[in-house]
């Protein structure tokens, strides 16, 4: 047993255990301490990443680490820590304190972390499930809030469908390759093709690509906002790091490119169109996530290190930007009577210049304006698509990103260029939220100007 490769996850698990035990004995008073403690757990895991020797395999080859998935884990841990920091005040203000909240996100992260390293479909399924079930819980854990439960149930049911699809896909994979380990398989075989479709569909559902996106807007809207932030960032990173691994095994199928092209085109255009008719900013950002899923899927359309590196860079920074914007929304939601209706954002700049500016920063980043880091990802994708001569896809990407500018701008217009009608009591930004926001925006800007700090680490 090569325990070395499991150190980060073990650290995480120990942390979970510690927090769990403390939670059992601590009363609600200590909620804040617990949450901050748990926010520090991923930091330790992050540090422990440096102890891992890579590349290596272990646990009967079920589990493998490489430079890339370690990087993914690092990003994941940072995201988790940040979103935990941002959770504390929101739940307090909303009167929905659960001490359990301190470790459930960690469990989800554990699942995602395992997902990135899994080399066997069993482990993939289980880690995915671990993450999913914790996320169902996170979505629905909102005291006395019907919408949160509804979102949770919808997410759960769609998730269950995905699980069974994934399992069936695994069954076909097993039938065609004779093993559940991910490995090279090069025959033309309808069973294998079927397994590709099923597994891809299940993962696409988790990644909320059209037409498997239906849960996304509802779950995002119903979930407590910091959780939405977590949902829109951490799983994406893990999934796409996993996707890049999966690419090795499936890309030779001629259906792979076709399926991904269809999925990504649908996602881009569908989501960008529907986002225009949203009335809630939260839902709007949910659709933005779907559209971005479309962009990201382009990154794995075919094997080309330029593409995949750009994708991983893009998705990591997207996660930060997305987390940041949802944290801003959660700060705003602490105001009495604030819903996320577009009109509530009117004149936000007057009331909260800093928050509004940061939100605008993230929105501009989503549009893909330099010097925000997402731009570099976009550029990388363009380059990769050109390099692989997938020019129609590049064109579609261009059109979709132009299309998307409109609805982001609408939010910016409301915040900056229009006068507010409703008056809300001002919202305070807690320390944790401030930390998260600062770090997210800092990273988005810094890595926009010096992308190589991260880019060079992504070695495929």
């Amino acid at each position, binding site marked *: 047993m090569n325990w070395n490769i499991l150190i980060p996850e073990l650290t995480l698990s120990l942390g979970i255990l510690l927090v769990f035990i403390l939670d059992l004995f601590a009363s609600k008073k200590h909620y804040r301490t617990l949450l901050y403690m748990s926010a520090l757990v991923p930091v330790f895991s992050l540090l422990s990443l440096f102890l891992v020797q890579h590349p290596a395999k272990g646990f009967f080859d079920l589990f493998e680490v490489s430079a890339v998935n370690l990087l993914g884990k690092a990003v994941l841990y940072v995201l988790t820590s940040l979103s935990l920091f941002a959770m504390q005040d929101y739940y307090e203000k909303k009167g929905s304190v659960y001490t359990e909240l301190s470790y459930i996100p960690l469990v989800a992260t554990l699942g995602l972390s395992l997902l990135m390293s899994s080399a066997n479909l069993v482990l993939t399924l289980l880690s995915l499930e671990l993450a999913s079930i914790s996320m169902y819980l996170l979505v629905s854990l909102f005291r006395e809030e019907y919408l949160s439960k509804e979102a949770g149930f919808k997410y759960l049911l769609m998730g269950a469908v995905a699980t069974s699809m994934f399992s069936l896909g695994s069954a076909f994979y097993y039938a065609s390759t004779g093993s559940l380990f991910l490995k090279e398989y090069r025959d033309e075989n309808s069973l294998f093709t079927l397994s590709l479709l099923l597994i891809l569909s299940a993962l696409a559902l988790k990644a909320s690509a059209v037409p498997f996106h239906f849960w996304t807007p509802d779950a995002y809207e119903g979930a407590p906002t910091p959780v939405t932030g977590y949902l829109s960032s951490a799983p994406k990173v893990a999934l796409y790091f996993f996707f890049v691994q999966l690419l090795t095994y499936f890309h030779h199928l001629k259906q792979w490119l076709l399926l991904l092209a269809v999925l990504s085109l649908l996602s881009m255009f569908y989501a960008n169109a529907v986002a225009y008719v949203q009335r809630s900013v939260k839902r709007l950002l949910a659709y933005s996530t779907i559209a971005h899923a479309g962009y990201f899927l382009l990154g794995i359309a075919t094997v080309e290190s330029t593409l995949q590196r750009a994708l991983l860079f893009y998705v990591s920074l997207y996660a930060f930007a997305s987390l940041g914007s949802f944290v801003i929304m959660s700060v705003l939601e602490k105001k009495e009577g604030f819903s996320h209706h577009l009109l509530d954002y009117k004149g936000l700049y007057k009331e909260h210049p800093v928050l509004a500016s940061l939100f605008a920063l993230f929105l501009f980043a989503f*549009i893909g304006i330099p010097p925000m880091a997402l731009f570099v990802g976009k550029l990388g994708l363009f*380059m990769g698509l050109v390099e692989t001569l997938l020019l129609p896809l590049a064109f579609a990407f261009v059109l979709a990103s132009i299309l998307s500018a409109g609805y982001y701008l609408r939010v910016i217009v409301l915040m900056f260029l229009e006068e507010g009608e409703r008056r809300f009591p001002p919202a305070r930004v807690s320390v944790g939220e401030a930390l998260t926001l600062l770090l997210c925006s800092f990273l988005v800007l810094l890595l926009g100007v010096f992308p190589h700090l991260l880019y060079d680490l992504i070695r495929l």
Partner: protein
Amino acid sequence: MELLLNLAIFLPLVGAVAVALVRKEKFAKVVSISLSSLVFFMVLYLFLNFNWQAQGFQYITRLEWIPSLGISYHVGVDGMAISLLLMTALVFVSAFLWSWKVEDRPNLYFALFLLLETACLGVFSALDFFLFYLFWEGMLIPMYFIIGLWGHDRKVYAANKFFVYTFFGSVFLLLGLASIVVYGYMMTGKLSFDYTFHLGFSYPLMLQIAGFLLFGLGFAVKIPMWPVHTWLPDAHVEAPTAGSVILAAVLLKMGTFGFVRYSLPLFPEASKHFIPLIFFLSVVAIIYAAMMAIAQTHIKRLIAYSSISHMGVVTLGTFAMDLNALNGAIYMMVAHGLSSGALFMSAGFIYDRVHSYHMEDLGGLARYVPKLAVLFMLSGLAGIGFPGLAGFVAEFLVFLGTYKNFPLWAFVAGVGVVLSAVYFLYMYKRVMFEEETLSEYRLEKWKHLKDLETHHTLSFLLLIVLAFLMGLYPYPFVKILEQTSKYVLGG
């Protein structure tokens, strides 16, 4: 010297941060004006020391920036760039002076303008695609907010239209950049965003055509060429005066600059291939926009259309494949920057005093604001290519150069000379003359109008004086462009 160029680019950025942080109104104004003047003098110094006989770029700074992507911080100027830099720096001084009396959120206002200045200076001096694009898009956000926050009634519509439209162009531009960078990578195995690195390639025709179209779409929107021009009138109409000035004087030049700097040297065959198309679009722009201009009653919209018309002359000259025409086109960029800036100031001043842009509400102002009348007239003359002012030299060179290979096109485009005089003087007549058509009420109001204040006059004079200088003694200004034009035309 090299340092000076970098300082000139980034001083405004520093200023922007300072102005945004120190929330004092006076501080903002003083800092902006003094910084921009400083930048202007730096650029002027560089301009005067520019070796106009030397080929290639000068004042080059090259630092490794993002080595793994082949991106470097690479700035430098050629004759065209230094001329445009000079014009840009001057126009910004002028715009800041003009904004001396801004009362609405002055700190943000000046900070955005300073940001814009860095972006504009950067675009003209970047020698790296990535850096270029960074600055290119960097101007989008400040301008968006300038239009959106300080604009007039339909500012939101205009700002959005401006943003989406120009973004539309620039994403295609980005795709084009990516394509040629990738091509360079595939050919040499070296990933490089460096402009000079790519100059050496001769791309296959298909790639040239694709690249030309992608780049061209980005530039065409910014210029703006017919028929992707409709954002411009709206943006101008709604923008605050200084915003319009910068928009017309500097931002539009980015597109034409891009054509000269990128499209022509990188895609020479494709450029030749597309001459008929570009000429058609240019001539249509010249005549069509002139017709649009005469149809307006809104003076700013009229001036905006005149910009489109003049930009048609620039694109015509750019693609005439002739040294003189190209010189003229570049000259036109600078000249138009000066004249259109001054024209928008005039319109803005009228609005400040009378609160209307509409010709129906105006008339007979000449008697009451004589200084404006003079400067407005001079600006207009500079715009319509009156000899002795910069615009004439430019138009003459463009038509001269174009006539060599494409006499008919040049001749037809020359109608613009007539039409521009018509719409400008028509507007001037409706705004400044014809007092007898005024109502009693207005006449009474006009009697209390205040003429230009000192800061207005100064900002006018800055532009007009340079326009005169360039019109009366174009020799050095044309000479400085020659090497640029030569290498752009490949020889």
